[in-house]
Protein backbone atom coordinates (compact mmCIF):
# COMPACT_ATOMS: atom_id res chain seq x y z
CA UNK A 1 0.00 0.00 0.00
CA UNK A 2 1.20 3.45 -0.76
CA UNK A 3 2.55 5.59 2.04
CA UNK A 4 0.69 8.50 0.51
CA UNK A 5 -2.68 6.90 0.31
CA UNK A 6 -5.57 9.36 0.58
CA UNK A 7 -7.84 8.39 3.45
CA UNK A 8 -11.55 7.82 2.99
CA UNK A 9 -13.45 10.29 5.13
CA UNK A 10 -16.62 9.11 6.86
CA UNK A 11 -19.93 10.87 6.47
CA UNK A 12 -21.37 11.21 9.96
CA UNK A 13 -25.11 10.72 9.88
CA UNK A 14 -28.00 10.34 12.27
CA UNK A 15 -29.09 7.00 13.68
CA UNK A 16 -32.86 6.54 13.64
CA UNK A 17 -34.83 3.31 13.76
CA UNK A 18 -31.72 1.27 13.03
CA UNK A 19 -30.87 3.24 9.89
CA UNK A 20 -28.38 6.00 9.24
CA UNK A 21 -30.23 8.80 7.48
CA UNK A 22 -29.02 12.29 6.80
CA UNK A 23 -30.99 15.00 8.47
CA UNK A 24 -34.29 15.48 6.70
CA UNK A 25 -33.40 19.16 6.74
CA UNK A 26 -30.37 18.49 4.58
CA UNK A 27 -28.27 20.50 7.00
CA UNK A 28 -24.88 19.66 8.38
CA UNK A 29 -22.45 21.51 10.60
CA UNK A 30 -18.71 21.45 10.94
CA UNK A 31 -17.21 19.64 13.89
CA UNK A 32 -13.75 20.58 15.07
CA UNK A 33 -11.32 18.95 17.39
CA UNK A 34 -10.44 20.47 20.75
CA UNK A 35 -7.84 22.67 19.09
CA UNK A 36 -10.26 23.96 16.50
CA UNK A 37 -9.14 21.89 13.55
CA UNK A 38 -11.87 20.62 11.28
CA UNK A 39 -12.78 16.98 11.81
CA UNK A 40 -15.92 16.37 9.83
CA UNK A 41 -19.36 17.63 9.00
CA UNK A 42 -22.04 16.17 11.22
CA UNK A 43 -25.72 16.01 10.39
CA UNK A 44 -27.58 18.87 11.99
CA UNK A 45 -30.70 17.17 13.29
CA UNK A 46 -33.98 19.03 13.10
CA UNK A 47 -37.40 19.08 14.77
CA UNK A 48 -38.62 16.54 12.23
CA UNK A 49 -35.65 14.27 12.81
CA UNK A 50 -36.54 14.37 16.51
CA UNK A 51 -40.11 13.49 15.63
CA UNK A 52 -38.96 10.55 13.53
CA UNK A 53 -36.64 9.40 16.27
CA UNK A 54 -39.45 9.45 18.84
CA UNK A 55 -41.67 7.48 16.49
CA UNK A 56 -38.90 4.92 16.02
CA UNK A 57 -38.30 4.69 19.75
CA UNK A 58 -42.01 4.22 20.42
CA UNK A 59 -42.21 1.53 17.77
CA UNK A 60 -39.31 -0.33 19.32
CA UNK A 61 -40.63 -0.04 22.87
CA UNK A 62 -43.00 -3.03 23.04
CA UNK A 63 -40.40 -5.43 21.74
CA UNK A 64 -37.51 -4.14 23.82
CA UNK A 65 -39.48 -3.73 27.05
CA UNK A 66 -41.09 -7.12 26.45
CA UNK A 67 -37.77 -8.89 25.88
CA UNK A 68 -36.52 -10.93 28.79
CA UNK A 69 -34.08 -9.20 31.08
CA UNK A 70 -31.57 -11.94 30.29
CA UNK A 71 -31.88 -11.15 26.63
CA UNK A 72 -31.38 -7.43 27.21
CA UNK A 73 -28.35 -8.25 29.32
CA UNK A 74 -26.86 -10.28 26.50
CA UNK A 75 -27.50 -7.51 24.01
CA UNK A 76 -25.84 -4.93 26.25
CA UNK A 77 -22.92 -7.23 26.82
CA UNK A 78 -22.64 -7.69 23.07
CA UNK A 79 -22.33 -3.90 22.76
CA UNK A 80 -19.38 -4.07 25.12
CA UNK A 81 -17.81 -6.83 23.05
CA UNK A 82 -18.13 -4.93 19.79
CA UNK A 83 -16.99 -1.70 21.40
CA UNK A 84 -13.95 -3.46 22.81
CA UNK A 85 -12.98 -4.47 19.30
CA UNK A 86 -12.98 -0.85 18.18
CA UNK A 87 -11.10 0.61 21.14
CA UNK A 88 -8.42 2.22 19.01
CA UNK A 89 -10.88 4.00 16.78
CA UNK A 90 -12.84 5.32 19.77
CA UNK A 91 -9.70 6.37 21.60
CA UNK A 92 -8.65 8.44 18.60
CA UNK A 93 -12.09 10.01 18.30
CA UNK A 94 -12.35 10.76 22.00
CA UNK A 95 -8.85 12.21 22.07
CA UNK A 96 -9.70 14.46 19.17
CA UNK A 97 -13.08 15.45 20.54
CA UNK A 98 -12.10 16.04 24.13
CA UNK A 99 -8.53 17.17 23.62
CA UNK A 100 -7.13 14.62 26.02
CA UNK A 101 -3.99 12.59 25.60
CA UNK A 102 -4.39 9.27 23.82
CA UNK A 103 -3.64 7.38 27.01
CA UNK A 104 -6.37 9.23 28.87
CA UNK A 105 -8.72 8.66 25.95
CA UNK A 106 -7.99 4.95 26.10
CA UNK A 107 -8.84 4.97 29.79
CA UNK A 108 -12.14 6.66 29.01
CA UNK A 109 -12.94 4.16 26.26
CA UNK A 110 -12.10 1.24 28.52
CA UNK A 111 -14.36 2.68 31.18
CA UNK A 112 -17.12 3.04 28.59
CA UNK A 113 -16.75 -0.62 27.64
CA UNK A 114 -16.83 -1.59 31.30
CA UNK A 115 -19.91 0.56 31.84
CA UNK A 116 -21.83 -1.46 29.27
CA UNK A 117 -20.71 -4.60 31.04
CA UNK A 118 -21.81 -3.17 34.40
CA UNK A 119 -25.27 -2.30 33.13
CA UNK A 120 -25.53 -5.55 31.16
CA UNK A 121 -25.29 -7.29 34.51
CA UNK A 122 -27.98 -5.09 35.98
CA UNK A 123 -30.77 -5.93 33.54
CA UNK A 124 -31.85 -9.06 35.37
CA UNK A 125 -31.14 -7.81 38.87
CA UNK A 126 -32.89 -4.51 38.91
CA UNK A 127 -36.29 -6.08 39.59
CA UNK A 128 -34.85 -8.05 42.46
CA UNK A 129 -33.27 -5.00 44.01
CA UNK A 130 -36.02 -2.45 43.32
CA UNK A 131 -39.01 -4.79 43.41
CA UNK A 132 -40.66 -6.31 46.43
CA UNK A 133 -43.19 -8.72 47.77
CA UNK A 134 -45.41 -6.46 49.85
CA UNK A 135 -46.56 -7.95 53.16
CA UNK A 136 -50.01 -6.39 53.07
CA UNK A 137 -52.41 -6.76 55.99
CA UNK A 138 -54.97 -8.98 54.32
CA UNK A 139 -55.50 -12.17 52.32
CA UNK A 140 -53.68 -10.91 49.23
CA UNK A 141 -50.45 -11.53 47.47
CA UNK A 142 -49.02 -8.17 46.50
CA UNK A 143 -45.83 -7.55 44.65
CA UNK A 144 -44.16 -4.56 43.08
CA UNK A 145 -41.92 -4.61 40.05
CA UNK A 146 -40.03 -1.87 38.26
CA UNK A 147 -41.11 -1.39 34.66
CA UNK A 148 -39.58 0.86 32.03
CA UNK A 149 -41.04 4.34 31.82
CA UNK A 150 -41.21 4.33 28.03
CA UNK A 151 -39.48 6.61 25.56
CA UNK A 152 -36.71 8.57 27.24
CA UNK A 153 -35.12 11.62 25.66
CA UNK A 154 -31.48 11.82 26.72
CA UNK A 155 -29.56 15.03 26.37
CA UNK A 156 -26.12 13.50 26.49
CA UNK A 157 -23.33 15.18 28.45
CA UNK A 158 -21.64 17.90 26.43
CA UNK A 159 -18.13 17.24 27.74
CA UNK A 160 -17.76 13.51 28.10
CA UNK A 161 -18.35 12.50 24.50
CA UNK A 162 -18.28 8.73 24.91
CA UNK A 163 -18.08 7.66 28.57
CA UNK A 164 -20.65 10.24 29.62
CA UNK A 165 -22.86 9.29 26.72
CA UNK A 166 -22.68 5.59 27.57
CA UNK A 167 -23.24 6.32 31.26
CA UNK A 168 -26.47 8.11 30.35
CA UNK A 169 -27.77 5.75 27.67
CA UNK A 170 -26.93 2.31 29.06
CA UNK A 171 -29.07 2.59 32.22
CA UNK A 172 -32.00 3.87 30.15
CA UNK A 173 -32.03 0.87 27.85
CA UNK A 174 -30.94 -1.63 30.51
CA UNK A 175 -34.36 -1.44 32.17
CA UNK A 176 -36.22 -1.72 28.88
CA UNK A 177 -36.77 1.90 27.89
CA UNK A 178 -36.03 3.11 24.41
CA UNK A 179 -34.02 6.25 23.93
CA UNK A 180 -33.77 9.29 21.75
CA UNK A 181 -30.31 10.67 22.38
CA UNK A 182 -29.09 14.13 21.50
CA UNK A 183 -25.34 13.79 21.30
CA UNK A 184 -22.89 16.38 22.57
CA UNK A 185 -23.26 19.26 20.17
CA UNK A 186 -19.59 20.02 19.78
CA UNK A 187 -18.26 16.49 20.28
CA UNK A 188 -20.75 14.35 18.40
CA UNK A 189 -18.48 12.03 16.45
CA UNK A 190 -17.96 9.31 19.10
CA UNK A 191 -21.75 9.16 19.42
CA UNK A 192 -22.16 8.49 15.71
CA UNK A 193 -19.50 5.84 15.81
CA UNK A 194 -21.16 4.32 18.87
CA UNK A 195 -24.34 4.15 16.78
CA UNK A 196 -22.45 1.95 14.35
CA UNK A 197 -21.53 -0.28 17.23
CA UNK A 198 -25.13 -0.46 18.37
CA UNK A 199 -26.29 -1.20 14.84
CA UNK A 200 -23.97 -4.17 14.65
CA UNK A 201 -24.44 -5.62 18.09
CA UNK A 202 -27.96 -7.03 18.28
CA UNK A 203 -29.59 -3.86 19.63
CA UNK A 204 -32.91 -3.80 17.79
CA UNK A 205 -33.39 -0.78 15.54
CA UNK A 206 -35.14 2.08 17.29
CA UNK A 207 -34.07 1.11 20.80
CA UNK A 208 -31.41 3.79 20.71
CA UNK A 209 -31.71 6.68 18.30
CA UNK A 210 -28.95 9.24 18.07
CA UNK A 211 -29.36 12.77 16.85
CA UNK A 212 -26.49 15.12 16.29
CA UNK A 213 -26.93 18.84 16.01
CA UNK A 214 -27.64 21.77 18.27
CA UNK A 215 -29.02 20.65 21.64
CA UNK A 216 -30.84 23.93 22.17
CA UNK A 217 -32.61 23.49 18.86
CA UNK A 218 -33.70 19.85 19.28
CA UNK A 219 -34.24 19.56 23.04
CA UNK A 220 -37.35 21.77 23.30
CA UNK A 221 -39.16 19.59 20.77
CA UNK A 222 -38.37 16.50 22.76
CA UNK A 223 -39.28 18.14 26.06
CA UNK A 224 -42.71 19.06 24.77
CA UNK A 225 -43.33 15.90 22.70
CA UNK A 226 -46.39 14.16 24.14
CA UNK A 227 -45.07 10.71 23.23
CA UNK A 228 -41.87 11.17 25.18
CA UNK A 229 -42.24 9.90 28.75
CA UNK A 230 -39.08 11.13 30.37
CA UNK A 231 -36.26 13.55 29.91
CA UNK A 232 -32.65 13.35 31.01
CA UNK A 233 -31.37 16.92 31.24
CA UNK A 234 -27.74 16.01 31.83
CA UNK A 235 -26.47 17.72 28.70
CA UNK A 236 -28.97 20.57 28.63
CA UNK A 237 -27.44 24.02 28.38
CA UNK A 238 -27.87 25.63 31.76
CA UNK A 239 -29.87 28.54 30.41
CA UNK A 240 -32.34 26.16 28.87
CA UNK A 241 -32.94 23.77 31.77
CA UNK A 242 -35.82 25.54 33.46
CA UNK A 243 -37.61 26.04 30.18
CA UNK A 244 -37.20 22.40 29.25
CA UNK A 245 -38.57 21.37 32.64
CA UNK A 246 -41.55 23.60 32.10
CA UNK A 247 -42.20 22.02 28.72
CA UNK A 248 -41.84 18.56 30.22
CA UNK A 249 -44.59 19.39 32.72
CA UNK A 250 -47.07 19.56 29.86
CA UNK A 251 -47.38 15.77 29.89
CA UNK A 252 -46.01 15.15 33.40
CA UNK A 253 -42.69 13.78 32.14
CA UNK A 254 -40.19 12.35 34.55
CA UNK A 255 -37.20 14.65 34.53
CA UNK A 256 -33.69 13.71 35.57
CA UNK A 257 -31.82 16.84 36.53
CA UNK A 258 -28.07 17.06 36.07
CA UNK A 259 -26.02 16.43 39.17
CA UNK A 260 -23.75 19.32 40.17
CA UNK A 261 -20.72 17.36 39.06
CA UNK A 262 -20.34 13.86 37.82
CA UNK A 263 -17.15 11.85 37.63
CA UNK A 264 -18.00 9.28 35.00
CA UNK A 265 -14.91 7.26 35.79
CA UNK A 266 -16.37 6.28 39.15
CA UNK A 267 -18.75 3.38 39.46
CA UNK A 268 -22.27 4.78 39.26
CA UNK A 269 -24.98 4.31 41.87
CA UNK A 270 -28.50 3.13 41.11
CA UNK A 271 -29.83 6.64 40.56
CA UNK A 272 -29.95 6.46 36.78
CA UNK A 273 -31.62 3.05 36.82
CA UNK A 274 -34.24 4.26 39.28
CA UNK A 275 -34.89 7.47 37.37
CA UNK A 276 -36.62 5.82 34.44
CA UNK A 277 -38.59 2.98 35.91
CA UNK A 278 -42.15 2.91 37.15
CA UNK A 279 -43.03 0.79 40.12
CA UNK A 280 -46.04 -1.36 39.34
CA UNK A 281 -47.88 -2.95 42.25
CA UNK A 282 -50.06 -5.99 41.59
CA UNK A 283 -52.59 -7.44 44.02
CA UNK A 284 -54.35 -10.78 43.96
CA UNK A 285 -56.49 -12.48 46.57
CA UNK A 286 -55.23 -15.66 48.19
CA UNK A 287 -57.90 -18.27 48.66
CA UNK A 288 -59.25 -21.61 47.57
Amino acid sequence: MSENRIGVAKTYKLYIGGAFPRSESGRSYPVSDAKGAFLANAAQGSRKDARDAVAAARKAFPGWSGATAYNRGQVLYRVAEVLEGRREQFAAEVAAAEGVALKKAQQLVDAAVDRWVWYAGWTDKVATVLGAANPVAGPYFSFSVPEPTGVVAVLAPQQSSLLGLVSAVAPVVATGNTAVVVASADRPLPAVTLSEVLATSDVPGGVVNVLTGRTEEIAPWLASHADVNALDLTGAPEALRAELERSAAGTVKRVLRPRPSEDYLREPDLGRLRAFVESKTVWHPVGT
Partner: protein
Amino acid sequence: MAAPSTSPSLPPSLADAVRDDASLRRFLHGLPGVDQVGVEQRAAGLGTRSIKKASKLWAIDAAIGMVDLTTLEGADTAGKVRSLCAKARRPDPDNPDVPRVAAVCVYPDMVATAKQELDGTGIQIASVATAFPSGRSTLKVKLEDTAFAVESGATEIDMVIDRGAFLSGRYGQVFDEIVQIKHACGDAHLKVILETGELATYDNVRRASWLALLAGGDFIKTSTGKVSPAATLPVTQVMLQAVRDWHTATGERRGVKPAGGIRSTKDAIKHLVAVHEVAGPEWLNPHLFRFGASTLLNDLLMQRRTQLAGHYSGPDYVTVD
Protein backbone atom coordinates in the same frame (compact mmCIF):
# COMPACT_ATOMS: atom_id res chain seq x y z
CA MET B 1 -77.63 -41.04 34.82
CA ALA B 2 -81.36 -41.33 34.81
CA ALA B 3 -83.33 -41.01 31.61
CA PRO B 4 -84.64 -37.52 30.95
CA SER B 5 -88.20 -38.73 31.52
CA THR B 6 -87.60 -38.97 35.26
CA SER B 7 -85.97 -35.53 35.40
CA PRO B 8 -87.93 -32.50 36.48
CA SER B 9 -89.21 -30.29 33.72
CA LEU B 10 -86.66 -27.62 32.90
CA PRO B 11 -86.51 -24.73 30.47
CA PRO B 12 -84.65 -25.70 27.29
CA SER B 13 -81.50 -23.80 28.25
CA LEU B 14 -81.14 -25.93 31.36
CA ALA B 15 -82.60 -29.18 30.02
CA ASP B 16 -79.41 -29.59 28.00
CA ALA B 17 -77.40 -29.45 31.19
CA VAL B 18 -78.91 -32.67 32.53
CA ARG B 19 -78.95 -34.64 29.27
CA ASP B 20 -76.15 -36.93 30.37
CA ASP B 21 -73.24 -37.15 32.76
CA ALA B 22 -70.89 -35.25 30.52
CA SER B 23 -73.36 -32.40 29.95
CA LEU B 24 -74.01 -32.08 33.64
CA ARG B 25 -70.31 -31.98 34.37
CA ARG B 26 -69.71 -29.39 31.66
CA PHE B 27 -72.54 -27.26 32.96
CA LEU B 28 -71.45 -27.35 36.59
CA HIS B 29 -67.83 -26.67 35.72
CA GLY B 30 -68.92 -23.87 33.40
CA LEU B 31 -70.52 -21.93 36.22
CA PRO B 32 -68.59 -18.77 37.11
CA GLY B 33 -66.06 -19.39 39.84
CA VAL B 34 -66.38 -17.98 43.31
CA ASP B 35 -63.49 -15.98 44.64
CA GLN B 36 -63.08 -16.82 48.30
CA VAL B 37 -61.68 -13.49 49.43
CA GLY B 38 -64.28 -11.55 47.48
CA VAL B 39 -67.26 -13.50 48.76
CA GLU B 40 -66.03 -13.37 52.35
CA GLN B 41 -65.45 -9.67 52.07
CA ARG B 42 -68.96 -9.08 50.82
CA ALA B 43 -70.32 -11.23 53.63
CA ALA B 44 -68.33 -9.24 56.17
CA GLY B 45 -69.72 -6.06 54.63
CA LEU B 46 -73.29 -7.32 54.94
CA GLY B 47 -72.46 -8.20 58.52
CA THR B 48 -71.82 -4.55 59.33
CA ARG B 49 -75.38 -3.47 58.61
CA SER B 50 -76.79 -1.85 61.71
CA ILE B 51 -80.33 -3.08 62.25
CA LYS B 52 -82.07 -1.14 64.99
CA LYS B 53 -85.47 -0.44 66.53
CA ALA B 54 -88.49 -1.30 64.39
CA SER B 55 -86.39 -2.95 61.73
CA LYS B 56 -84.82 -5.16 64.36
CA LEU B 57 -88.17 -6.16 65.83
CA TRP B 58 -89.42 -6.96 62.35
CA ALA B 59 -86.35 -9.07 61.73
CA ILE B 60 -86.75 -10.96 65.01
CA ASP B 61 -90.35 -11.86 64.28
CA ALA B 62 -89.48 -12.78 60.70
CA ALA B 63 -86.64 -14.97 61.93
CA ILE B 64 -88.86 -16.74 64.49
CA GLY B 65 -91.30 -17.50 61.72
CA MET B 66 -88.49 -19.01 59.66
CA VAL B 67 -87.12 -21.36 62.30
CA ASP B 68 -87.14 -25.08 61.66
CA LEU B 69 -87.03 -25.99 65.34
CA THR B 70 -84.80 -29.00 65.38
CA THR B 71 -83.90 -31.91 67.56
CA LEU B 72 -81.69 -34.56 66.01
CA GLU B 73 -80.20 -36.45 68.90
CA GLY B 74 -79.70 -40.11 69.52
CA ALA B 75 -81.30 -39.43 72.89
CA ASP B 76 -84.51 -37.99 71.42
CA THR B 77 -87.68 -39.38 73.02
CA ALA B 78 -91.35 -38.84 72.45
CA GLY B 79 -91.38 -36.62 75.52
CA LYS B 80 -88.61 -34.43 74.17
CA VAL B 81 -90.36 -34.10 70.80
CA ARG B 82 -93.71 -33.29 72.41
CA SER B 83 -92.15 -30.56 74.45
CA LEU B 84 -90.40 -29.18 71.37
CA CYS B 85 -93.71 -29.11 69.53
CA ALA B 86 -95.27 -27.20 72.39
CA LYS B 87 -92.48 -24.67 72.11
CA ALA B 88 -93.08 -24.48 68.36
CA ARG B 89 -96.72 -23.69 68.86
CA ARG B 90 -96.17 -21.07 71.54
CA PRO B 91 -92.56 -19.98 71.54
CA ASP B 92 -93.06 -17.46 74.34
CA PRO B 93 -95.96 -18.33 76.64
CA ASP B 94 -95.93 -14.81 78.10
CA ASN B 95 -96.29 -13.24 74.69
CA PRO B 96 -98.91 -14.97 72.59
CA ASP B 97 -98.34 -12.54 69.72
CA VAL B 98 -94.98 -14.16 69.01
CA PRO B 99 -95.22 -15.88 65.63
CA ARG B 100 -95.09 -19.66 65.46
CA VAL B 101 -92.03 -21.28 64.01
CA ALA B 102 -92.11 -22.58 60.46
CA ALA B 103 -91.51 -26.24 61.20
CA VAL B 104 -90.31 -28.83 63.63
CA CYS B 105 -87.50 -31.02 62.36
CA VAL B 106 -86.99 -34.53 63.73
CA TYR B 107 -85.74 -38.01 62.82
CA PRO B 108 -88.20 -40.19 60.84
CA ASP B 109 -89.20 -42.32 63.83
CA MET B 110 -90.30 -39.17 65.68
CA VAL B 111 -92.45 -37.84 62.86
CA ALA B 112 -95.61 -39.60 64.06
CA THR B 113 -95.23 -38.07 67.50
CA ALA B 114 -94.69 -34.63 66.03
CA LYS B 115 -97.69 -35.07 63.77
CA GLN B 116 -99.95 -35.74 66.76
CA GLU B 117 -98.73 -32.58 68.40
CA LEU B 118 -98.85 -30.29 65.39
CA ASP B 119 -101.86 -31.41 63.39
CA GLY B 120 -103.92 -28.45 62.40
CA THR B 121 -101.43 -25.82 63.59
CA GLY B 122 -100.00 -25.04 60.17
CA ILE B 123 -96.54 -25.84 61.50
CA GLN B 124 -94.73 -28.06 59.04
CA ILE B 125 -93.28 -31.40 60.05
CA ALA B 126 -89.83 -31.82 58.64
CA SER B 127 -87.87 -35.01 58.81
CA VAL B 128 -84.31 -35.76 57.93
CA ALA B 129 -83.97 -38.85 55.78
CA THR B 130 -81.63 -40.67 53.40
CA ALA B 131 -79.29 -42.13 56.02
CA PHE B 132 -78.82 -38.79 57.69
CA PRO B 133 -76.30 -37.37 58.43
CA SER B 134 -73.63 -39.23 56.44
CA GLY B 135 -75.81 -40.45 53.59
CA ARG B 136 -73.78 -43.62 53.51
CA SER B 137 -76.22 -46.29 52.52
CA THR B 138 -77.87 -47.75 49.47
CA LEU B 139 -80.37 -45.81 47.41
CA LYS B 140 -82.91 -48.43 48.36
CA VAL B 141 -82.48 -47.72 52.05
CA LYS B 142 -82.59 -44.00 51.43
CA LEU B 143 -85.81 -44.28 49.47
CA GLU B 144 -87.37 -46.42 52.19
CA ASP B 145 -86.20 -43.98 54.83
CA THR B 146 -87.87 -41.18 52.90
CA ALA B 147 -91.06 -43.13 52.29
CA PHE B 148 -91.29 -44.01 55.97
CA ALA B 149 -90.99 -40.37 57.00
CA VAL B 150 -93.57 -39.25 54.45
CA GLU B 151 -95.98 -42.01 55.41
CA SER B 152 -95.57 -41.05 59.06
CA GLY B 153 -96.75 -37.55 58.21
CA ALA B 154 -93.67 -35.52 57.26
CA THR B 155 -94.52 -32.57 55.05
CA GLU B 156 -90.92 -31.69 54.41
CA ILE B 157 -87.94 -33.97 53.81
CA ASP B 158 -84.38 -32.86 54.53
CA MET B 159 -82.17 -35.21 52.53
CA VAL B 160 -78.38 -35.33 52.40
CA ILE B 161 -76.46 -35.61 49.18
CA ASP B 162 -73.81 -38.24 48.64
CA ARG B 163 -70.74 -36.09 49.26
CA GLY B 164 -68.42 -38.92 48.36
CA ALA B 165 -70.02 -39.17 44.93
CA PHE B 166 -69.96 -35.40 44.53
CA LEU B 167 -66.32 -35.01 45.51
CA SER B 168 -65.27 -37.83 43.21
CA GLY B 169 -67.06 -36.11 40.34
CA ARG B 170 -69.98 -38.52 39.98
CA TYR B 171 -72.46 -35.69 39.62
CA GLY B 172 -74.92 -37.81 37.69
CA GLN B 173 -75.23 -40.19 40.59
CA VAL B 174 -75.94 -37.36 43.01
CA PHE B 175 -78.44 -35.90 40.58
CA ASP B 176 -80.27 -39.21 40.13
CA GLU B 177 -80.50 -39.74 43.84
CA ILE B 178 -82.07 -36.34 44.39
CA VAL B 179 -84.52 -36.90 41.53
CA GLN B 180 -85.59 -40.24 42.99
CA ILE B 181 -85.90 -38.94 46.54
CA LYS B 182 -87.93 -36.04 45.20
CA HIS B 183 -90.18 -38.57 43.56
CA ALA B 184 -90.49 -40.49 46.83
CA CYS B 185 -91.43 -37.28 48.63
CA GLY B 186 -94.69 -36.97 46.79
CA ASP B 187 -96.25 -33.74 47.98
CA ALA B 188 -93.69 -33.22 50.71
CA HIS B 189 -91.20 -30.42 50.09
CA LEU B 190 -87.63 -31.50 49.53
CA LYS B 191 -84.69 -29.74 51.16
CA VAL B 192 -81.35 -30.87 49.84
CA ILE B 193 -78.54 -30.75 52.38
CA LEU B 194 -75.22 -30.09 50.67
CA GLU B 195 -73.11 -30.43 53.82
CA THR B 196 -71.00 -27.51 52.71
CA GLY B 197 -68.46 -28.12 55.47
CA GLU B 198 -67.42 -31.27 53.61
CA LEU B 199 -67.52 -29.70 50.15
CA ALA B 200 -64.73 -27.37 51.33
CA THR B 201 -64.72 -24.80 48.52
CA TYR B 202 -67.20 -22.16 47.46
CA ASP B 203 -66.92 -23.39 43.88
CA ASN B 204 -68.21 -26.75 45.10
CA VAL B 205 -71.00 -25.06 47.05
CA ARG B 206 -72.11 -23.27 43.91
CA ARG B 207 -71.96 -26.45 41.81
CA ALA B 208 -73.78 -28.52 44.41
CA SER B 209 -76.43 -25.82 44.72
CA TRP B 210 -77.10 -25.88 41.00
CA LEU B 211 -77.04 -29.64 40.94
CA ALA B 212 -79.70 -29.76 43.66
CA LEU B 213 -81.81 -27.12 41.94
CA LEU B 214 -81.59 -28.88 38.58
CA ALA B 215 -82.66 -32.13 40.25
CA GLY B 216 -85.76 -30.50 41.68
CA GLY B 217 -84.88 -29.63 45.28
CA ASP B 218 -87.33 -27.09 46.69
CA PHE B 219 -84.73 -25.84 49.12
CA ILE B 220 -80.99 -26.02 49.26
CA LYS B 221 -79.71 -26.41 52.77
CA THR B 222 -76.19 -25.87 54.04
CA SER B 223 -75.58 -28.51 56.63
CA THR B 224 -76.66 -31.38 58.79
CA GLY B 225 -75.46 -29.62 61.90
CA LYS B 226 -73.22 -32.59 62.58
CA VAL B 227 -70.19 -31.27 60.69
CA SER B 228 -68.22 -28.17 61.42
CA PRO B 229 -68.17 -25.62 59.87
CA ALA B 230 -71.92 -25.63 59.34
CA ALA B 231 -73.78 -22.56 58.06
CA THR B 232 -71.56 -19.55 57.53
CA LEU B 233 -72.59 -16.24 56.09
CA PRO B 234 -70.45 -16.53 52.94
CA VAL B 235 -71.75 -20.04 52.25
CA THR B 236 -75.33 -18.88 52.66
CA GLN B 237 -74.52 -16.00 50.36
CA VAL B 238 -73.22 -18.29 47.61
CA MET B 239 -76.40 -20.35 47.90
CA LEU B 240 -78.56 -17.22 47.82
CA GLN B 241 -76.77 -16.20 44.63
CA ALA B 242 -77.62 -19.61 43.21
CA VAL B 243 -81.35 -19.32 43.88
CA ARG B 244 -81.32 -15.77 42.59
CA ASP B 245 -79.60 -16.90 39.39
CA TRP B 246 -82.02 -19.81 39.19
CA HIS B 247 -84.86 -17.32 39.32
CA THR B 248 -83.27 -15.26 36.56
CA ALA B 249 -82.93 -18.37 34.44
CA THR B 250 -86.32 -19.97 35.11
CA GLY B 251 -88.57 -17.38 36.72
CA GLU B 252 -89.02 -19.78 39.61
CA ARG B 253 -88.10 -19.11 43.25
CA ARG B 254 -86.45 -21.80 45.34
CA GLY B 255 -85.53 -21.62 49.00
CA VAL B 256 -82.37 -21.60 51.11
CA LYS B 257 -81.88 -23.00 54.58
CA PRO B 258 -78.75 -22.37 56.56
CA ALA B 259 -78.58 -24.88 59.40
CA GLY B 260 -76.24 -25.35 62.29
CA GLY B 261 -74.11 -22.73 63.95
CA ILE B 262 -76.59 -19.87 63.89
CA ARG B 263 -77.22 -19.37 67.58
CA SER B 264 -77.63 -15.65 68.11
CA THR B 265 -80.09 -13.04 66.96
CA LYS B 266 -77.16 -11.08 65.63
CA ASP B 267 -76.14 -13.95 63.36
CA ALA B 268 -79.72 -14.50 62.26
CA ILE B 269 -80.11 -10.83 61.34
CA LYS B 270 -76.89 -10.88 59.36
CA HIS B 271 -78.35 -13.78 57.40
CA LEU B 272 -81.60 -11.89 56.84
CA VAL B 273 -79.62 -8.92 55.57
CA ALA B 274 -77.92 -11.27 53.11
CA VAL B 275 -81.29 -12.65 52.04
CA HIS B 276 -82.60 -9.13 51.58
CA GLU B 277 -79.67 -7.76 49.62
CA VAL B 278 -78.34 -10.79 47.77
CA ALA B 279 -81.45 -12.77 46.81
CA GLY B 280 -83.96 -9.96 47.24
CA PRO B 281 -86.81 -8.98 49.53
CA GLU B 282 -89.08 -11.65 48.02
CA TRP B 283 -87.02 -14.27 49.81
CA LEU B 284 -87.77 -12.84 53.27
CA ASN B 285 -90.47 -15.42 53.68
CA PRO B 286 -90.65 -18.85 55.38
CA HIS B 287 -91.55 -20.38 52.03
CA LEU B 288 -88.17 -19.35 50.71
CA PHE B 289 -85.89 -19.03 53.70
CA ARG B 290 -85.51 -21.07 56.87
CA PHE B 291 -83.14 -21.34 59.76
CA GLY B 292 -82.30 -24.85 60.92
CA ALA B 293 -81.72 -24.24 64.60
CA SER B 294 -82.45 -25.20 68.15
CA THR B 295 -80.85 -22.67 70.49
CA LEU B 296 -81.42 -19.72 68.16
CA LEU B 297 -85.09 -19.51 69.00
CA ASN B 298 -84.53 -18.64 72.65
CA ASP B 299 -82.04 -15.93 71.82
CA LEU B 300 -84.56 -14.44 69.40
CA LEU B 301 -87.17 -14.52 72.13
CA MET B 302 -84.88 -12.86 74.64
CA GLN B 303 -83.95 -10.16 72.21
CA ARG B 304 -87.59 -9.65 71.39
CA ARG B 305 -88.35 -9.09 75.05
CA THR B 306 -85.44 -6.68 75.31
CA GLN B 307 -86.68 -4.71 72.35
CA LEU B 308 -90.18 -4.44 73.75
CA ALA B 309 -89.35 -3.96 77.42
CA GLY B 310 -86.47 -1.57 76.92
CA HIS B 311 -84.21 -3.51 79.27
CA TYR B 312 -82.19 -6.71 78.90
CA SER B 313 -83.86 -10.05 79.47
CA GLY B 314 -82.37 -13.25 80.88
CA PRO B 315 -82.46 -16.98 80.09
CA ASP B 316 -84.75 -17.73 83.01
CA TYR B 317 -87.52 -15.76 81.34
CA VAL B 318 -87.75 -17.98 78.27
CA THR B 319 -88.56 -21.68 78.34
CA VAL B 320 -85.73 -24.14 77.72
CA ASP B 321 -87.90 -26.13 75.35
